[in-house]
């Protein structure tokens, strides 16, 4: 990716190999981080193209460009690709690049495992995407793949889907083990747990969540496989099975999964706000405790996705209260960010713009989450566009904005070049407007009664669907600009200093820019 400078001091270390083999065989955390990030960007574009198909169909009432059957395939692949192909690998890529540098380690603890966990991904997604060309089409049962729609009634490609989920899961588990081992064993002397940068903390917690729930997902798809091919009836009522069991298992994975997609974002945003406010983060230890309690609570709220399946009153009340409780630590984080900016000395470079809008728009997503946790109201909101608006607010201007913020923030360290600030800001504003025009009206059409996962809709929803589609195309097009900015920065630009940003603290800023191929071969001192 970048011209890589040999570290002068340790000449017994090799630089990168040349050509394709460098990328296939690499065990270097920076190379693997780069691979993850590019892979995730490619998936982001593919998943995004599918979103454009969805929004184009919804531009007007009536069926125009695709058939309902294909629409469902787009919907399903869009969700799966964005969650497992774009957001998660991007965070793993960031962890690869940053965790070793932040804790003062020379590399990840298990470099070969690291290579394997990346190279599994192209195969997993290759298999998933190839299902589009199979007889009967791609999976069409939504990213939540509820049985029996995904078992008895599924297209034949469901078996490939199951296999691909297994591979993704294996990759995630290996990646998480690597992160945990690195953080637990390879911190520079003096870096106590409570001195770790928040991004490292957020990933430590995320990695534990992943190890806890990916096997549950694997269990769910394995039971599906058994139902489909080996005559069992885990989820088949006619055989004495229980379709609701599927949902319990899925969401026991699924809710922690949504926090897997937001905790690293909390870490990133904390660093960026602190840097551009030129002021130490407010309430470091409460930030850590907030993340820990969010992670623990995330295991006891899964059934808030299932308020309408007919659970007993006691269960509904429990899951309502537990879900509402998550708003407390989430609020603490937002208050801490605001307190960090208060009386700071703020400048508005692109990463900060993304981080600020993260705080505002993620909070709006939190509000709608709180509304959704109120069971009687959820009876009206559930499976409408209100839910779609909620989770896109936490995932797009939440997770995805944090990833973009991270790229702008650390790319000078990765490439040694500054990105073009004017274009960065333009990219931010286009994305910001695009995201809000796309998703804000979805709150209204949801409240007004438009169900989600519909290829066609009643006439009263027409106006705002049109607006939403326009916003989506604006957002989509702006990401081409992002690609352009990143490529331009990789190829050249104003040279970055080691510290890059005036207010930046942390070990990664103590090495040259671009970071040498091997950093911290001898551990730094931390005080």
């Amino acid at each position: 990716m970048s011209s890589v400078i040999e570290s002068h001091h340790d000449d017994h270390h090799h630089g990168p190999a040349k050509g394709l083999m460098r990328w296939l065989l690499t065990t270097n955390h920076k190379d693997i981080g780069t691979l993850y990030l590019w892979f995730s960007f490619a998936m982001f574009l593919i998943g995004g193209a599918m979103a454009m198909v969805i929004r184009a169909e919804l531009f007007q009432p009536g069926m125009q460009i695709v058939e309902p059957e294909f629409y469902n395939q787009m919907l399903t692949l869009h969700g799966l690709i964005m969650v497992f192909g774009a957001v998660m690998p991007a965070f793993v890529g960031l962890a690869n690049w940053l965790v070793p540098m932040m804790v003062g380690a020379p590399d990840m603890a298990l470099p070969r495992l690291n290579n394997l966990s990346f190279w599994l991904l192209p195969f997993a997604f290759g298999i998933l995407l190839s299902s589009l060309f199979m007889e009967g089409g791609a999976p069409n049962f939504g990213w939540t793949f509820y049985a029996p729609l995904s078992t008895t009634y599924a297209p034949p490609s469901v078996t490939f889907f199951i296999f691909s989920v297994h591979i993704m899961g294996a990759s995630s588990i290996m990646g998480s083990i690597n992160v945990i081992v690195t953080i637990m064993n390879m911190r520079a002397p003096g870096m106590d747990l409570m001195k770790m940068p928040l991004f490292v903390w957020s990933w430590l917690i995320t990695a534990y969540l992943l190890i806890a729930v990916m096997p549950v997902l694997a269990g769910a798809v394995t039971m599906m496989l058994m139902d489909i091919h080996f005559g069992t009836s885990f989820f088949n009522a006619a055989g004495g099975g229980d379709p609701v069991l599927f949902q319990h298992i899925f969401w026991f994975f699924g809710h922690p999964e949504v926090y897997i997609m937001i905790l690293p974002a909390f870490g990133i945003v904390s660093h960026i706000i602190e840097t551009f406010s030129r002021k130490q983060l407010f309430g470091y230890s409460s930030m850590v405790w907030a993340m820990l309690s969010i992670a623990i609570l995330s295991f006891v709220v899964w059934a808030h996705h299932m308020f309408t399946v007919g659970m007993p009153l006691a269960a509904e009340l429990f899951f309502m209260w537990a879900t509402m409780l998550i708003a407390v630590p989430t609020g603490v984080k937002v208050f801490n960010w605001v307190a960090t900016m208060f009386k700071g000395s703020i400048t508005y470079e692109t990463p900060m713009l993304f981080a600020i809008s993260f705080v505002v728009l993620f909070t709006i997503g939190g509000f709608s989450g709180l509304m959704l946790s109120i069971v009687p109201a959820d009876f009206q909101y559930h499976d409408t566009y209100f839910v779609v608006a909620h989770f896109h607010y936490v995932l797009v201007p939440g997770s995805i904005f944090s990833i973009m913020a991270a790229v702008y923030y650390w790319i000078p360290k990765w490439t040694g070049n500054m990105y073009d600030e004017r274009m960065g800001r333009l990219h931010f504003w286009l994305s910001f407007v695009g995201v809000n025009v796309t998703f804000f009206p979805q709150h209204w059409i949801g409240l007004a009664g438009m169900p989600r996962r519909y290829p066609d809709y009643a006439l009263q929803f027409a106006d705002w669907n049109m607006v939403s589609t326009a916003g989506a195309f604006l957002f989509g097009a702006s990401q081409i600009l992002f690609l352009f900015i990143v490529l331009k920065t990789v190829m050249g630009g104003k040279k970055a200093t080691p510290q890059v940003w005036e207010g930046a603290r942390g070990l990664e800023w103590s090495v040259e820019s671009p970071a040498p191929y091997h950093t911290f071969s001898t551990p730094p001192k931390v005080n």
Partner: protein
Amino acid sequence: MFKKINNLSKSAYVALFMLSLYPSKVFSDWDALNMREGVTQVSRDVFELHMLIFYICVAIGAVVFSVMFYSLFRYTKKRNPNPSTFHESTKLEVAWTVVPFLILIAMAVPASKTLTEIYDDEEGEINIQVVGYQWKWEYKYLEDDINFFSNLSTDQDEIYNLVPKGENYLLEVDEPLIIPVDTRVRFLITANDVIHSWWVPDFAIKQDAIPGFINTAWTRAEETGIYRGNCTELCGKNHGFMPVVVKVVEKDEYSDWVLSKKEEAIKLAELTEKEWSLAELTQRGEGVYQKNCVACHQMNGEGLPPIFPALAGSDIVMFDKDRNVEILMEGVQGAAMQSFANQLSEVDMAAVITYTRQAWGNAENGDGEYVVPSDIVEYKKPKI
């Protein structure tokens, strides 16, 4: 009180909307962008709860965001070149943990109360079983032994933009559920194939219809009228095309309707006895086919292989009458083909089988045998 809330909500929405540039007249009325109050005590309670949490969120947002935007403008590097160094305050941390917690309790109390009220699942004066199918609803009135299916009645041509769309596009059915006003009606909700979900926004009822489970919901509608809703759990290809329509009528109108439904049933029994000609059956069958079969097997009988096989030129449809009847009566295990035994009367069953055995050249290329209603009656007799 509600009027006031509505007005407030109007302005709050306008204020929140970032694109206020759009001439709002172009767009639907703002009220149409909020949750409906509905026509039952429960639905009004739910609406009130919704507005309550909405305003609490707006208030919290207003406080947090104004501090934030104040900082963003006041403490720029230009205006405040020397940042403060404070970075901790136990007092503040405790305050912003405890205060939100108390606000949450204030929300949880009315929410739990309303929920308990909704969960009262005592028997109704009228009890109706609601069954979800791919892609239609069946309603069975348990006391009166009435049952019928409710299918989308919007024309395919409207969906494919060949003719203008009607006012109730996608929200209209051939036969709505009919219930009396001011009467406690209890719904027993289940499904026959995949999971569906039965939603009537004006009653604030949304309950999943799950094969093998029976969920309950109840309502007491206070105003007559037509209330439209949807299926809200992804259930396959035509998930977007199986609306729910409920017609609430005066009590005496309801009893008249029940009587007329019963008479209809008697007439149907007579039809079954009648001698049917091939032409009559084929003609009737075409209508049945359009309503029940085209979604998968298509108007031209070509289906959408491999999931939905073609009937035109099918060996079973051309040469194997017994298996043909059996498939329609029993469905096909492990495939999307369900049993139509309960959905179609003997007459309609015989008619639709006959139609498929006559159409698309099947009669000329096959054995040309057809099925009459008495064959179906015979099939249904318990086998010893």
